[in-house]
């Protein structure tokens, strides 16, 4: 079987998770590779979560929050917006393609857009190939 990427999605409750639900109620089909985890706000997303997901075998991580200016908590998404560049920088230093992690703003009304984002993300991660993390760590162990 060909490689199918595993993608973990961290979605804020008010915009993006609702947007993903809207994709469902509108029956907008999209790639099945994403596993969504709900958080109250994108500000709750600690870079640790992303590293944890990658470490546990995710090939990509999608972070979605309300559009800037539209946060349910008024400014939570800006906190994620600030963490994101540093997170990408760290991933690059760890030799992981930063494209495996992506931050997108998806509102509660953008079910269609959510589907497009997931499809695009899935395609890109598929092109990147499987995450090297678990395999490399296994090779390290085998060497000893």
């Amino acid at each position, binding site marked *: 079987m060909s490689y199918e990427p595993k993608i973990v999605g961290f979605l804020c409750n008010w915009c993006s998770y609702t947007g993903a639900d809207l*994709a469902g109620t509108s029956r907008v089909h999209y790639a099945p590779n994403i*596993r969504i*985890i*709900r*958080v*109250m706000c994108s500000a709750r997303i600690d870079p640790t979560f992303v590293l944890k997901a990658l470490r546990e075998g*995710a090939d990509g991580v999608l972070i979605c929050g309300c559009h800037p200016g539209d946060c349910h*908590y008024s*400014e939570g998404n800006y906190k994620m917006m600030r963490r994101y560049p540093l997170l990408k920088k760290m991933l690059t230093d760890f030799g992981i393609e930063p494209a495996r992690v992506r931050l997108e703003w998806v509102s509660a009304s953008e079910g269609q857009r959510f589907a497009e984002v997931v499809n695009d993300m899935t395609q890109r991660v598929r092109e990147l190939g499987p995450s090297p993390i678990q395999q490399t760590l296994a090779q390290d162990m085998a060497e000893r």
Partner: protein
Amino acid sequence: MEEQRIGVYVCQCGTNIAKVVNCEEVVRALSEQPGVVVAKTYKYMCSNPGQEMIIADIQEHGLDRIVVAACSPRMHEPTFRKAIQTAGLNPYFVEMANIREQCSWVHDDPQVATDKARALTFGALHRVAKHEPLERMSVEMCPDVLVIGGGVCGMTAALELADGGNHVYLVEREGTLGGNVARVDLTAPYLDSARDLITALVTRVEEHKRIDVLVHSQVSSLEGFVGNFTATVETIWGDGASVSQFRVGNVVVATGYKEFDASRVVHYGYGKLPNVITSFEFEKMLRAGRIQTKEGKIPQYVAIIHCVGSRSKEFHTYCSRVCCMTALKYAHEVKSAIPNCYVSDVYIDMHAFGKGHEDFYKRGSEAKTLFLMYAKNDHPVIRKAGPGDDCEMLIEVNEKLSGEQIEIPADLVILMVGMEAREDSDAVARLVNISRDKDGWFIESHPKLDPVATTTDGIYIAGVCAAPKDIPDTVAQARAAAGRILAKTIRGSIEIDAVFAEIDEDKCSGCRVCNALCPYSAITYDASKKKSTVISAVCKACGACVAACPSGAIKARHFTDSQIFAQIEGVLT
């Protein structure tokens, strides 16, 4: 830890889930997991028989945690929380896996959808194992209200609240009540007297036994949180001052605005040309009952210039909303006082959005007010007329509707000065812990759905302090704020959601990284203990501080690191 006894329930949602997801297979996979005592699938988990099945299983098998793989938790989480509570479990011991909206409805390959449903349910299973019992809290709500600002807005809110039975402290910085409306003659578009309006309000406020009016006063501090604020008010009496302190449950901020300083617009010559006056100066003339130039002459030509300080790149980009109708009111008042006077109304756009406004605009046209349009950033320029002219001044403007460069004769020019956030709005915002937008107006909780509440619980904003608006809108907001407060105080206490952030005092290092992150100012710093604390009544559980806390001292109840880690592990098995 004691062995957990988890029940897993996979809903078929009629065929909504079952036609794509093989629910039996999900149940089979889950039933093999450690800790899972019961795993079942059923047609409609949310139906009464479905809920009763879960309740019966909890009692029969001694289940302590429940996973429901069904629709979106946004739909039925409350249902299942209630159900397991009926069975004697803490309501937070249930976790839902969204296998309908985010699985069966968006995928069509049964195998793939089943795999995904299984993964999502594994996520829920791992997560629920980490759940903790949570209890809702109740906080006492003081019924007294502090109203800051004694204009139309503050007085209306105070009366509404006091009529509703609450005690109100109305704090006004100036020596008299009335605010800016007290400076106005008639009101547009129905030309009622502002004086009558204000007098009626002031009399009622001053006579109301449940309103304490504090003039010459300022709120110097506001401590606490919703239902439990302590306000300190300083009052200055001539050369003496006194300080009073009282407890309030809620605050209405109705601090209004100040007018734009017309001398900032140099090309209008305000302050240099004696007969260029501001709208408020003209109101004074109208109240005195005599429209005349500085020299005491009756003007033959009156010009009104709109958007002074508003809708321009240089000053304020926003529209001040009331000036258009006020300008029409001036045209009307000039024409009725001096029938042979020619009124030019120099505007950018005529904003006649409100009730009766368009008709009022038409009446202005019918009375032969000459409307002349200028471009937003191409201001008219006023200069003194020559000796041969039959007027005092000439206003040169690039008139948009004709495309001509014209000059308008004028003996008296009225500048429609816009509204501006008061210079102390920053201090007020800090005082009550709310934010301001780039123009200095206070920010509402939601611009459309929650316009009088703020991100700080118990603090309401009404009237122009939130953005320019006219008297009817202001009064509506004042009453809305009062209504919100009355609805909250009537119960005597407020219930606080069990989901909020809390700081482990032992772990908090007092680094204060979290302090500025909270949009609700729910985090306070105790300087003596050198620790930060979350006021749970104020916290809305976004988790921004939790993610940022570098010492892992802040816990997001029901969204803890370990719960989310567990879910990550689960969905990736």
